[in-house]
Every structure is written in structure tokens, then in C-alpha cells.
């Protein structure tokens, strides 16, 4: 299903700009919205956009939005998506910077943000399962589990950079054939 540019802009604007917890949480929310709820993208289109946005320099979330917009409506979709996903949150950040001392005095605002940050942990965990779950099949669970576990080990304990981890995963993925 191909959305209008207006609907694409609304989704990017809503999810891309108002999700706390960084780009991973926003991409998780976008996956749920665009794949599970609206069926704009199928799983393989999402996987392609997600994988490539991780190896694109800069902000992964904006690269993902650009990729999703491109798949849905080519150039116009890509531009609308990246503008809608970036302008409002950038304006909020700019406004908070200008009025930082004022905002910092409102304790209720800080408390509301704390609540949103706690929800982001749940969003990130749900996202992890929504992405990994489909790859845990009877045939492929060993390969998938080893890749995920190795990635976590390299990131958390060996402090290897994300790009290098992705590179290692790509090489492993190339040589370790999926069971047929």
C-alpha cells in the first residue's frame, strides 16, 4: 500500500519527532507503525532499510526515514520523510537550548520526561523482539542467536565500534550459510 505524501509526512512527524530514547526507539516505533499497523512496508523492505541505515554515516534514524520515504514515494517521499522527521525535533532542541535555564526550572517537565524515558526502555525491548523474533525459526535459530549474542558481547564487553561490529556480522553472514 502506497501512502500519500501527506500521510507519510504525518507519520514521520508524529513518530520521528516525539519518541524519547534516541533513534533506535524511533525506528522501533516506525517499524510498528509502518510495517505492523499500516502495512506500508513489508518485512524485507524494512530489513533492507534498517540494515542500510545502520551503515550510512550520520544519524541512523534520519537515514532510515529517508530510505523508507524513498521506497514508498521515491525522491519526493525521501525528502518529505527526512524533513518531517528532522525539522520539528531540531526546532524543539533549538528552543530548549535558547531557553534551557527556564525549562530546567520546571520540575514537572523533568518528571514527565523521566516517565517517557522509562517507556523508551520498553519500546526498545519490544523493538528488539519484533526485529529478532521472525529470525528465530526452527532452522535458523542457532545462526540468529549466535550473531545476536556475539554482537552484544562485542559491543558491551569488548567495546568494539558499531561499524566494526556490523562489518564482522556482514562477513559472518556471507560465509555462514543459512540452513535450507
Amino acid at each position: 500500500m502506497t501512502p500519500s505524501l501527506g500521510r507519510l509526512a504525518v507519520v514521520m512527524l508524529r513518530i520521528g519527532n516525539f519518541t524519547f530514547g534516541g533513534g533506535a526507539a524511533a525506528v522501533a516505533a516506525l517499524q510498528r507503525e509502518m510495517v505492523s499497523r499500516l502495512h506500508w512496508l513489508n518485512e524485507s523492505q524494512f530489513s533492507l532499510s534498517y540494515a542500510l541505515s545502520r551503515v550510512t554515516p550520520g544519524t541512523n534514524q534520519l537515514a532510515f526515514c529517508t530510505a523508507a520515504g524513498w521506497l514508498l514515494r521515491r525522491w519526493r517521499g525521501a525528502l518529505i520523510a527526512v524533513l518531517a522527521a528532522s525539522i520539528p525535533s531540531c526546532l524543539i532542541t533549538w528552543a530548549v537550548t535558547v531557553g534551557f535555564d527556564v525549562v530546567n526550572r520546571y520540575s514537572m517537565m523533568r518528571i514527565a520526561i523521566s516517565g517517557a524515558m522509562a517507556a523508551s526502555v520498553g519500546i526498545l525491548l519490544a523493538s528488539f523482539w519484533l526485529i529478532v523474533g521472525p529470525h528465530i525459526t526452527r532452522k535458523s535459530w542457532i545462526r540468529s542467536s549466535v550473531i545476536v549474542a556475539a554482537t552484544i558481547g562485542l559491543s558491551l564487553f569488548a567495546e568494539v565500534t558499531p561499524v566494526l561490529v556490523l562489518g564482522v556480522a556482514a562477513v559472518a553472514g556471507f560465509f555462514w550459510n543459512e540452513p535450507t
Partner: protein
Amino acid sequence: MNFLLLYLLFLKASMSSFSGLAALPIIREDLVVKRHLLTDRDLNTAVVIGRTTPGPKGLYIISVGQYAGGFAGATAAWLAIVTPSLLVIPLLEFAGRRADHPKVKQVLRAVVLASAGISLSATLPLAADALRGWLSYAIAVAALIILLVTEVDTLWVIFGAGLLAVVAHSLGAPGSM
């Protein structure tokens, strides 16, 4: 400071990083150490602002732009974070045409799984920072369950969590935020 130069400095930082705060050392070197356009305190404040506003963590660069060159600086920073994202299009075209090849498929699947693993690793420091007191744990678990078993819009989950935290605090619930 010259808008174009500021844009190029931010673009250099943005292009040489692949996640959140990875560009921070380059920004510090260029803007704090070499050009004295902002202080370490400004940079720290920018990072704090980037963490407390919605959107990607990398948006602290907008605050840096504001400190370095006012609204024009913030605009240069915005352009610098948007520009690299367009690079995904040629990648998409290249990989998309080969997406049905079994080798490409299995490489992409491995990268997707690794990306999920990296995101989970990044969740742990966020969880350590965000989960303090029973209410924050309850909110995180409730968000997880709601997102996995219902079709409720994520935005409502986020707003609901913020509202719940404020109400609990206002009622003086023990262990609230």
C-alpha cells in the same frame, strides 16, 4: 562565524560517525579546542539537552550549533545531519537490485540481527539511567507488554508514561519519579 565553514565542520563530524554521540570528539576538537567557539561546559549542556529532547541522540549538534553561531549555526548543524542521510538512497538502489540474491539476503539478515544486538546493548545504559524506582520499572514493563500485544499507537504510550509519572509524583506516591 561563516555559515558554510560551520556547515562543513558539522558535516565532517556527522559523516565520520555512525551513531549518537560518536561525533563528539571531532566536534570538541574543531569547535572547543581549535576555534574556541564554545566551552566544554556549553558542549556538556548541549549533550544534556540532546538527551532530554525527543528525536535522535545526535540532535545535541543543534545545541552546539546554537552555542557556536546562533540560529544560523543551528541551521548549519541541521543541514549537516540531514545531508548524509541521503547517502542511503544509492545504497538502497545498489542493494535493492540484488536483494533477491541468497548471499545478499543472508548478509542483510546478519546485519539486521547485529543492529538489533547493538540497539539492545545501547538499551542497557539507557535503562540504568531511566529505571529508578518501582514506577519507572512498571512503566517500562507496561510499555513492553502494550507494544507487543496491542496495536496502541507508540505516541500514546509515551504520553501516557509522562502523564503517569507526573500524576504519581503529584500524589506523592512512594518510589515515584
